[in-house]
């Protein structure tokens, strides 16, 4: 049956440069002298170290447990001794450090006891936990914990499971070779995801510049008797972006404000599916990944690399040419420059490209925007990048949000085509991080305000209670009647003290209050006046402050809230590099 294809707007067609690295099969990168395994390699909670220096670990042993639901476990990639648990430079553009388990391998590759499970024999919840504890995350580059994406929306039936083998970034071929060489395992792994989601249809999308991968997957699907459809999609960056691939294969457009499951579709990268299969069928947690090493090197190739291998060791395998000036992690469209080759290979490391000035010429000088609209035509999310650029430059961040800044996936198509060579994506990243910073500040201020208000109301309540007690006490004194006396005076003591214990402040016994009623009242009045004045001042301040969410529609406000929620997840991940695949 011929699959009907849809199309997404925009996109660009850079030179793919994929051929050099697919000439030889995947090689197994040798064991380095030391492995530097960061505990936080995914989006979500930071795992805590479960090992300490001097401890011996086995291959596959848990060294960092998942922290919270959106998190994933980390394991020892080989057997050996833990030398240290310390801060080490991370695979991140900032070059900051992250808590890392340093392991000295003993070369024996002794495995832990591997537990094999059949996902059909376990309740789905257990399978998800199993995947989390095997460290299965999106290997397309986004490294979002896969188990957290494996729950169908309640109200919507799961129609399509999209398997992403598009791999649209130039230079990158790790998914291509994986599909060529290990198609059976991928196809077997798809069943896990399909069953957990209850998807009706499975669509495997591969860019049509990888005919070998398409053929291999096709054969595997046939051989294993599955009804999955292998679809060759037109080669156009960013066809491998999850949203773009979903659009091409199903015609559905997932807006930034929604989860794809709400539209009855979910998307996983082929490498993710492969690791999930290894985890269940062989009991092997994620210990290594395929990394493309290409660019300005003598021997471009794909390597199966243990996580934690220093990039320097990996890069040496390719023998960089003398004019190499820098190394990129990820593709040339969305990757970043590696600040320090001491950083280790992590789950997000899909590709390392040696760069030279000839390969990646420096951008010509930036010119003013001539409003030519080329960027808008290239934007796969149909934004108006020149407007966003204009607002970001003017630091008009409210407007950038109104113009859907957070729908931007930072694919770089706009910068790619701009005749004025404006680094548009950098402006957008700048605007996003500014907005995040402001949000954080605002949240801190809100928390302080809430604290202040809680204290105020507590004091008011106490004042009111005190006034009541005073009133009753005076009534009791003047009338001297029994009923009133039950509520005030010495018999009332237990009650008064319990109220004080409840409010937990300013021990003032009823006798004190009774002794100096006039003083207490004056005090209370003064306090109330001050509180009211402060309240007024705060209200004034607030109304005078410009809010960048002023002219937003309710829908946009909702969107922003959703974005904030997502960002909270992202932010805690230290902004892991996000790949277009998955």
């Amino acid at each position, binding site marked *: 049956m011929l699959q009907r294809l849809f199309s997404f707007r925009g996109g660009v067609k850079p030179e793919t440069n994929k051929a050099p690295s697919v000439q030889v099969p995947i090689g197994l990168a040798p064991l380095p002298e030391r492995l530097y395994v960061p505990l936080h390699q995914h989006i979500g909670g930071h795992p805590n170290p479960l090992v300490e220096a001097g401890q011996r670990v086995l291959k596959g042993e848990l060294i960092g447990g998942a922290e919270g639901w959106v998190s994933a476990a980390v394991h020892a990639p080989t057997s050996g001794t833990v030398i240290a648990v310390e801060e080490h430079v991370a695979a991140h*553009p900032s070059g900051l450090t992250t808590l890392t388990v340093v392991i000295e391998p003993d070369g024996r590759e002794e495995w832990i006891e591997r537990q094999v499970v059949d996902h059909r024999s376990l309740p789905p919840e257990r399978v998800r936990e199993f995947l989390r504890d095997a460290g299965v995350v999106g290997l397309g580059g986004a490294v979002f914990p896969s188990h957290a994406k494996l729950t169908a929306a309640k109200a919507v039936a799961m129609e399509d499971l999209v398997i992403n083998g598009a791999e649209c970034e130039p230079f990158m071929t790790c998914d291509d070779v994986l599909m060529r060489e290990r198609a059976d395992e991928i196809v077997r792994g798809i069943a896990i995801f399909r069953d957990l989601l209850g998807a009706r249809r499975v669509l495997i999308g591969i860019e049509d510049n990888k005919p070998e991968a398409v053929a291999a997957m096709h054969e595997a699907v046939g051989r294993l008797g599955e009804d999955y459809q292998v679809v060759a999609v037109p080669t156009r960056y960013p066809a491998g972006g999850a949203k773009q691939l979903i659009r091409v294969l199903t015609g559905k457009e997932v807006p930034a404000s929604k989860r794809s499951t709400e539209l009855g579709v979910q998307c996983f990268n082929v490498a993710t599916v492969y690791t999930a299969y290894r985890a269940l069928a062989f009991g092997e947690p994620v210990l290594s990944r395929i990394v493309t090493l290409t660019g300005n090197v003598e021997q471009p190739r794909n390597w199966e690399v243990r996580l934690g291998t220093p990039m320097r060791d990996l890069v040496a395998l390719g023998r960089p040419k003398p004019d190499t000036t820098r190394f990129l992690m990820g593709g040339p469209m969305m990757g970043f420059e590696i600040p320090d080759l001491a950083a280790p290979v992590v789950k997000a490391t899909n590709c390392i490209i040696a760069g030279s000035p000839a390969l990646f*010429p420096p951008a010509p000088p930036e010119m*003013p925007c*001539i409003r030519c609209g080329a960027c808008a035509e290239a934007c796969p999310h149909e934004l108006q990048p020149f407007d966003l650029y204009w607002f970001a430059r003017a630091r008009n961040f409210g407007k950038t949000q109104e113009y859907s800044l957070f729908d931007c996936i930072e694919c770089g198509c706009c910068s790619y085509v701009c*005749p*004025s060579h404006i680094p548009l994506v950098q402006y957008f990243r700048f605007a996003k991080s500014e907005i995040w910073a402001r949000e954080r500040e605002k949240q801190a201020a809100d928390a302080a305000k809430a604290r202040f208000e809680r204290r105020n109301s507590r004091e008011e309540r106490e004042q009111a209670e005190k006034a009541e007690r005073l009133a009753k006490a005076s009534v009791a004194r003047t009338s001297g009647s029994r009923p009133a006396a039950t509520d005030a005076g010495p018999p009332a003591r237990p009650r008064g003290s319990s109220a004080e214990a409840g409010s937990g402040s300013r021990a003032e016994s009823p006798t004190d209050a009774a002794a100096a009623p006039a003083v207490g009242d004056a005090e209370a009045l003064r306090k109330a006046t001050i509180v009211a004045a402060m309240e007024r001042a705060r209200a004034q301040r607030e109304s005078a402050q410009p809010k960048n969410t002023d002219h937003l529609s309710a829908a946009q406000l909702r969107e922003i809230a959703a974005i904030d929620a997502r960002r909270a997840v992202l932010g805690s991940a230290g902004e892991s590099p996000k790949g277009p695949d998955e």
Partner: protein
Amino acid sequence: MIDFSTPPYLLQAHTSVRRVMVQVLVALLPGIGAYVWLIGPSILLQLLVASLAALLAEALMLRLRGRPLGLFLSDGSALVTAWLIALTFPPLAPWWLITVGTLLAIVVAKHLYGGLGQNPFNPAMIAFAACIVSFPALMSQWPVLGLKLTLVEQLEMIFGLAPRIDALSGATPLDALKTALKIGEGNIDIPTLLATQEVFGTFAGRGWEWVTAGYLLGGLWLWQRKVIHWQAPAGFICGLSLLAGALWLWNPERFASPLFHLFSGGAMLGAFFIVTDPVSGCTTTRGRLIFGFLAGVIAYTIRVFGGYPDGVAFAVLLLNLCVPLIDMYTRPPIFGMKDGK
């Protein structure tokens, strides 16, 4: 503020502002060729004068504003403005008139508004509008058709060495039509005029019709090269011909055909080189259509019912004013938001 060592590390080869501008200049060549061939080589001199004035003004302003000279002088945008000015002014206009127009365009309309990419109004149209208002006589002295002047005589004319004689009492075909209709006071109809008067050619002004055809050719090439979008020219041509066509069908004696209007005056140059100016035009797809269409309608209205021989410049300037509004109301829905949520 901006970290420049971040992605994308690949940029499209051969794309630059200069390349865009050079392609626009190249696209003007067929029209200029026809101009030289049919009207006279004096236009080359005018192009030269305008170019020099533009580059000088540009250099001066860049220096004053402390901008890198080499980068911006070589971007070609000043030359595009200069050429458009030369092509819209009368071919034998005195050199200083062209110079004043160009200076006005570059200094005031472009740099005082912030330079490349910042000008809300089309600089060439500012020059034209300002000059036709300030020097109406000079701006309507077109050479009598078939006037055979040697290059030297043309030079003398432009540089004011020869008296500006009745040789220059000619008019543009649009003007001629309007004047003849006025003089004829209803006793004369357009088909007769077109057939009898020497100033008219096969379907529009003699000679001029081929110059405008040259612009059309260049414009189509620009579109094919993806330098311009089709919406603005299509909108302009539709706007102009719909109005012209309706009136022509209603009373062919009083109103010329859409074909005549399309190939007269600044219509073709306007459609492909003026309303397509990205800086002062609309940026959204629908916006460009609206911009072009309204410009066409207004240009026709001014040219037929107004006091000036042609209305393209005023129409474009008027719409430049409306660009922010049009852009705001035609912002396209983004990915995933097409069902109006």
